[in-house]
C-alpha cells in the first residue's frame, strides 16, 4: 500500500500554521543559486539509480511516492542487491534495466535526464563528474566525497556543465526545518543572540554488517571496484579511502545544519576522538568536536558529538541556543523542542501563537516548585509543523522541481561544499590533536 500524500493531505497535516504561510516558508530562500535550469516541459523525468544498498533503498522508497518521474535503470555491483531491486520494481509494475557498472549504464541508457547516486562515498566524485559530463542532472548522497579535492571537483563540473547537482542533505528540504529557520529563527528572532550550538548523533554498539556467503562478490570484482574484501565492501563507512567515518556518516547531517542555520562557516575547529572500541575499523568510533562561529564581534561555539558505542543522550538533533530562547531540531518530531527564556520580551508569546509559529505545551505540575536559587524553568512550546512523508521525499521533489525549472535547489553542491569542508577539517583536527583555523576563502569551492 503506497503512502502517497497529496498536496491537500500535506496541508491538512501541517494544520496550525496556515496553508499560505507554510507554503511560503517551505520555499528555498537561497538567493545565490548557481545551477538553475530554465523552465521546461518535463512531465516525466527518466531517472537511473546508481547504488541500491541501505541508502539507495531509502531513496527508492521516497522516489516511488513522487509523480512525474520514472525509474528506468538500476545499477549496483552486488547482484544480490541488484536482483532484489529489479524484482521489487517488477512487482510494482516498474520494470527496469539493470547494470553492474555505471559506465555501461550511461553508454546504453540514452533517454535519461537524471541520476540518483547512493554508492559508497569514494565513488561519488567519479560517478557524479561522469554523469554531469554526460549531460545528466545529479542527486548525490552526502558526503559529496571522501576527499576535499573530490568534492571540489564535483562543484567545478557542476559549474562547467551547467547541470544541476543536488547533495543529499535532506533536512534542507524538510518543511519543519524550513519553517523553523525562516519563521522562528530569522523572522521572529526567537533565540535572540545566538551564543551556542549543540548537536549529536549517538548510536549503540552494533555488529558489523555481514553478508550471505552464497552471494559473495568475487575477489576480482571487489578489487576492480576498490574493495579489499567483502567485509570492507559491506562496512565501507569505517574505512579510510572509502568513507569518512562517523563524523562524516552521521555528523554530516548535523554539521550541515550548523552552517545552514548560522548562515556562515566556522573560523576554527578543534576535536578529539579515537578508535577506542572497535578493533577492525580505520575510522574513529567516538568523536567530540568544537567549532567556533564568528558572531557580532564574539564567538558562538558549536559542540558536536558522535558516539558509536552508546545510544545515550537523546538521539540525534541540532540545538541552537541564544539569550532569548533555544530551538532543538531533529528529523524525529518527538525530539524537537523550543524553549523561551524568562527574560525574553522582544516578541510576545501571544503574537507567536497567534501567527501559528509556536504552540504552547502545558506546564508540568511541579514547575512552580523550582528552587529560588535556580534559573526559573523555561516556558515550553512546540513547532506546529508536521508532515507525513519519508524524510528524503521533499528533497527529491525539490531536485525534480529544479529540473523542471519550478524551484531552486535547496542544497546545490557549492553550498554543500562548505559543510563538506568543515567536516573533513574535523576529522583532520582529531588526527592533528590541535585547533585548526578555517578561512573564508578555503571553505568555498
Amino acid at each position, binding site marked *: *500500500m*503506497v503512502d502517497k500524500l497529496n498536496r491537500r493531505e500535506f496541508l491538512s497535516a501541517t494544520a496550525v500554521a496556515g496553508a499560505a504561510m507554510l507554503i511560503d516558508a517551505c520555499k528555498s530562500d537561497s538567493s545565490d543559486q548557481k545551477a538553475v535550469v530554465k523552465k521546461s516541459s518535463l512531465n516525466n523525468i527518466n531517472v537511473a539509480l546508481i547504488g541500491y544498498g541501505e541508502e539507495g533503498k531509502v531513496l527508492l522508497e521516497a522516489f516511488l511516492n513522487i509523480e512525474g518521474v520514472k525509474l528506468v535503470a538500476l545499477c549496483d555491483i552486488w547482484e544480490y542487491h541488484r536482483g532484489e531491486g529489479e524484482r521489487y520494481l517488477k512487482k510494482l509494475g516498474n520494470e527496469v534495466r539493470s547494470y553492474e557498472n555505471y559506465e555501461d549504464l550511461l553508454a546504453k541508457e540514452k533517454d535519461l535526464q537524471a541520476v540518483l547516486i547512493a554508492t559508497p562515498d569514494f565513488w561519488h566524485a567519479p560517478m557524479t563528474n561522469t554523469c554531469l559530463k554526460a549531460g545528466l542532472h545529479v542527486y548525490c548522497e552526502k558526503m559529496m566525497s571522501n576527499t576535499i579535492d573530490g568534492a571540489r571537483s564535483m562543484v567545478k563540473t557542476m559549474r562547467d556543465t551547467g547541470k544541476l547537482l543536488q547533495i543529499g542533505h535532506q533536512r534542507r528540504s524538510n518543511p519543519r526545518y524550513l519553517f523553523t529557520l525562516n519563521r522562528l529563527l530569522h523572522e521572529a528572532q526567537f533565540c535572540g543572540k545566538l551564543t551556542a550550538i549543540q548537536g549529536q548523533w549517538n548510536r549503540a554498539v552494533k555488529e558489523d554488517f555481514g*553478508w550471505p556467503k552464497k552471494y559473495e562478490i568475487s575477489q576480482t570484482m571487489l578489487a576492480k571496484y576498490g574493495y579489499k574484501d567483502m567485509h570492507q565492501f559491506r562496512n565501507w563507512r569505517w574505512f579510510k579511502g572509502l568513507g569518512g567515518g562517523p563524523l562524516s556518516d552521521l555528523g554530516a547531517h548535523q554539521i550541515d545544519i550548523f552552517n545552514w542555520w548560522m548562515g556562515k562557516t566556522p573560523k576554527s575547529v578543534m576535536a578529539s576522538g579515537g578508535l577506542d572500541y572497535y578493533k577492525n575499523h580505520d575510522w574513529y568510533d567516538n568523536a567530540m568536536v568544537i567549532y567556533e562561529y564568528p558572531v557580532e564581534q564574539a564567538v558562538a561555539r558549536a559542540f558536536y558529538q558522535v558516539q558509536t558505542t552508546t545510544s545515550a543522550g537523546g538521539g540525534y538533533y541540532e540545538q541552537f541556543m541564544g539569550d532569548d530562547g533555544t530551538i532543538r531540531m531533529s528529523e524525529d518530531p518527538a525530539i524537537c523542542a523550543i524553549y523561551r527564556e524568562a527574560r525574553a520580551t522582544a516578541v510576545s508569546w501571544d503574537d507567536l501563537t497567534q501567527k501559528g509559529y509556536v504552540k504552547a505545551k502545558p506546564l508540568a505540575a511541579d514547575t512552580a516548585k523550582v528552587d529560588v536559587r535556580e534559573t526559573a524553568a523555561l516556558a515550553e512550546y512546540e513547532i506546529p509543523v508536521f508532515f507525513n512523508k519519508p524524510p528524503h521525499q521533499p528533497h527529491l521533489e525539490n531536485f525534480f522541481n529544479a529540473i523542471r525549472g519550478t524551484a531552486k535547489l535547496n542544497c546545490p553542491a557549492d553550498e554543500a561544499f562548505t559543510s563538506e569542508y568543515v567536516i573533513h577539517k574535523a576529522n583532520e583536527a582529531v588526527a592533528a590533536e590541535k585547533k585548526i583555523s578555517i578561512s573564508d576563502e578555503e571553505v568555498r569551492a
Partner: protein
Amino acid sequence: MKIFVSCVSPIVAALLVATAAMAQDKVPLKTQLPKPLFVGTPVPLNVPNLEPPLKGKRADFMVPAGTVLLSKGKKVTASDDSPVTGTLDLVTDGDKAGDEGSWVELGPGKQWVQIDLAKKATIYAVLVWHYHSQARVYRDVVAQVSDDPNFKSGVTTIFNNDFKNEVGAGAGKDQNYVETYQGKLIDAKGAQGRYVRLYSNGNTTNKLNDYIEVEVWGKPAA
C-alpha cells in the same frame, strides 16, 4: 460470616490446589534470541495505537510443561511464490540473525506466509521476527491457526492489529508494535490446528513484507 466461610472454604481450597497444580505444570518458554541490531537512518514513526517499547527483556511467558518448538524446518508456503529476496525455508530454518541473507522478503502490499506443522497441534505461543535491524512497524499483522490449509473454515485468530480490515480477516484490536531482536510474542492461548498463517501489509520503511523467522510453540496432538 462463619457459616459462609465454612461453606466456601472447601471450594476455595480445591481451587487453590488446582491453581497450584496448574502453576507447577507451567514453565517459562525458552528460546534463543539473536544479537540486537538497530542500524541505518532512523525513520520517524507516525503510527497510531503504538505499543510502548519493551524495557529490557520480556517477562517470562509461561507455557504448559512439555511445550516444544513445532515449526523448525517445517514447510512454508506464501502468497508470493517468487520472493523479492530469499527463500521461504528461511522462515523456519532457526536462524534469527537480522543480517542480510537471513530473511525472505515478499512483494508489496498484502501478503501471507503459512507454516504446515505436519499434524494438528495445540499451540501456546507464536514468536515472529519480521525484521529487527531497524525500528519498523509492520502493518496489519494478523496471525491465525486452522486445520484448513486454505483458511476458509475453523480459523482461530490469535493476533490482529489490522484496525481497518485491510487483509480481510476482520478488524483487529491488538496494538501496532516495533519488533526488536526479541521478536513479537503472540499468546496463542491453546488454539488448535495444523497450519499457522501470518499476514502483513508492508511496513513503515517500505511496501514489502519480511520474515526472518517464525516459531510456533505447542504440543502435537496425540
